[in-house]
């Protein structure tokens, strides 16, 4: 009994002791100082500062008592604080989905109010001009976007866009661009001495090195890329040794197939390749056997098949026409162009060839039969090129279907109406390195010119400008280094197939 009393006494003493504790907890029911947030927003474009200006109703509380935190997550991959200012100013660099969250904290009470936005960034780099230049041996890829402002076309230059967006250097020793499309977007092939690679056309990130695009991840022995053409299904890459390697794209997506390491021709030296929308094959000049040859792109059942070019035995050609299946020892093909006249028999071709020291202008048509490994040329015509005596091995050419033909000689751009008029179109301060024509069939018909001194021009190529009724220079940029190549960026295969024919 004593023991029980002892225990009970101790227990009561403990309870009484607890009653002596001083509770310093805060049980005030103060009101949370939350706010109301409204934000108007647009879709963020990568590479450009994205600004969100929240309208905040502080409900009578001093606004200086609040702190702001902007947090963003990208496709659930990472999450980070991107600003601690009230107004968000941030530049997204990837095309992706973002969850942007604004957290407004009332600092005295710790009360939080949040606002969320799920949004996808877009690229505004889909279409425009790309310029590859060499600046102190560094590869510089620049981009010109064409914007419409008040119904006027404005050319916005993004100089060295690769480094601006990605932060690192592209490479060294640049010399050529290539274009590669899917239905949704494009990739830009950059050929350079430090290693060729493809750039994502939406955000200018590196997609893949050309070396990795070969089976086994290694180049065939002696291979150094010189040019690549990407047709609908057939993709071909040409080396400086004249060997061509091919791959067949099963679905039109990027990086879904690899080049094989066996040359497409065992006894040929391909000097240049040509592809244009709906051509159906990649056309080539074999300088070793001095003949034109092709590899089938479409129809699908014949992709990869070599197509030999023959002169149609029943065709009528001018007496001096250089036969395409035997163009003669030493003949060089300087330019290949093609266009299709609806309803006409055969596809039209234009070529500038050099025989001896002279340049000749060839026109001819080609018909190809699905599944045949031979296609026939006919209606061949050849004349001494109107620019003979002006042009040289560095001259560049482009054309506007069957009407105007353009060519360069050092620092002068000439046009020829292919009938009776050939004259300088524009004279520049430096040697012309490359030209390319673009038209959209609506409000743009232009020729871009890249110069050795780093200047880049866009000239109006409309009839009015050619005939002197309009100012020719639409846009000029400079300070780009030594330009080595320029290329219009069509953005996707459908646009390329539609607009490159205009």
């Amino acid at each position: 009994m004593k023991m029980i009393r002892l225990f009970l006494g101790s227990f009561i003493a403990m309870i009484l002791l607890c009653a002596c504790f001083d509770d310093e907890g805060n049980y005030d029911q103060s009101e949370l100082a939350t706010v109301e947030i409204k934000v108007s927003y647009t879709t963020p474009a990568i590479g450009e500062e994205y600004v969100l200006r929240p309208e905040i109703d502080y409900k009578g509380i001093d606004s200086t008592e609040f702190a702001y935190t902007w947090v963003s997550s990208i496709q659930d991959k990472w999450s980070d604080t991107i600003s601690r200012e009230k107004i968000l100013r941030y530049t997204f660099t990837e095309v992706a989905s973002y969850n942007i969250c604004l957290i407004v904290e009332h600092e005295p009470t710790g009360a939080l109010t949040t606002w969320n936005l799920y949004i996808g960034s877009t690229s505004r780099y889909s279409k425009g001009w790309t310029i590859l230049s060499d600046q102190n041996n560094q590869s510089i890829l620049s981009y010109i976007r064409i914007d419409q402002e008040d119904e006027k076309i404005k050319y916005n230059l993004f100089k060295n866009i690769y480094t601006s967006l990605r932060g690192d250097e592209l490479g060294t020793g640049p010399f050529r661009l290539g274009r590669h499309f899917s239905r949704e977007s494009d990739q830009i092939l950059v050929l350079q001495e430090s290693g060729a690679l493809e750039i994502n056309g939406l955000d200018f990130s590196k997609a893949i090195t050309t070396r990795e695009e070969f089976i086994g991840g290694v180049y065939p022995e002696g291979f150094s890329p010189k040019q690549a053409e990407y047709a609908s299904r057939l993709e071909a890459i040409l080396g400086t040794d004249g060997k061509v390697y091919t791959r067949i794209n099963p679905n039109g997506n990027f990086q879904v197939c690899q080049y094989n390491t066996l040359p497409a021709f065992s006894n040929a030296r391909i000097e240049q390749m040509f592809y244009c929308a709906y051509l159906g094959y990649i056309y080539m000049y074999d300088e070793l056997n001095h003949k034109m040859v092709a590899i089938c792109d479409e129809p699908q059942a014949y992709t990869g098949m070599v197509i030999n070019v023959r002169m149609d035995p029943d065709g009528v050609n001018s007496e001096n026409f250089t036969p395409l299946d035997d163009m003669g020892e030493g003949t060089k093909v300087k330019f290949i162009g093609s266009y299709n006249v609806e309803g006409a028999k055969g596809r039209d071709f234009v070529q500038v060839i050099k025989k001896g020291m002279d340049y000749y202008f060839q026109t001819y048509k080609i018909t190809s039969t699905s599944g045949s490994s031979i296609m026939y040329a006919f209606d061949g015509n050849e004349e001494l090129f109107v620019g003979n005596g002006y042009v040289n091995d560095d001259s560049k050419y482009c054309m506007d279907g069957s009407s105007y033909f353009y060519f360069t000689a050092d620092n002068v751009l000439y046009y020829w109406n292919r009938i009776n008029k050939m004259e300088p179109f524009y004279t520049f301060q430096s040697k012309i390195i490359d030209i390319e024509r673009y038209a959209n069939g609506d409000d743009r018909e232009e020729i871009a010119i890249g110069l050795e001194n780093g200047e880049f021009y866009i000239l109006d190529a409309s009839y009015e400008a050619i005939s002197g009724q309009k100012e020719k220079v639409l846009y000029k940029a400079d300070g780009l280094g030594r330009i080595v190549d320029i290329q219009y960026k069509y953005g996707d295969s459908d646009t390329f197939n539609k607009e490159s024919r205009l």
Partner: protein
Amino acid sequence: MKNKIFTLTVSILLWVGCDRREIPTYDTKIHYIEFENATTDSTIFTFIYYPNDDYYDLPVGVKLAGDVADRDMTYNIVVDEELSTVESKHYALPQSMVFRQGMFHDTCYVRLNKTEDLDSKSVRLVLRLVGTSDMPVGKLENSVAVVLFSNTVEQPVWWNSDVETYYLGTYSQKKFLLFLEVTGADLTDATVSEIRAAALEFKRYLIDHKGEPETIEDDGQPMTVPVLGLEEEF
């Protein structure tokens, strides 16, 4: 008496309350040995892909069931002679079979010898795990491994209808053997690009050796492949 009982009870409770025990883990110290594959998954091997080799060390995966071992453990594989059709000249088991400490998976290499009689027949090697003091045998269905091997040619699984239609054409033993000799390619799990590359390499060879006996099928027709490319030289 009541006080004594009360005091004793409180003392026991206090003693139990002070007892500290480690959380027990399941460790039976028994390590079972099993083949990686169940008996139903037979291994089929042909020396055709290894024309220059006299033998092949076939990897046979084994695994441990139970806790990881803290020392090397010995296990044993024997040939089930009743179920096997091999002769002793056809194979050699490793001298020692040790499951390395700290591993859950290990590999035993069984040497398969390419003997002349394998050119015309296939033999069956049935391996059976036998328990040792270190490692008793685990699941029954993973205790036997069956290996069928030969030096004969059978149409490989990868030479499917797509390969036949677009790349290599109709299968024949002579074509397959020449293909292997020329390309050395095993197209199991190959990408379409790899299949096309091998087929073009083979086509290149057929072009270069056109009319030679090795490129003539047994029916007297020239050996051909449908893969597109290299047509300029036909």
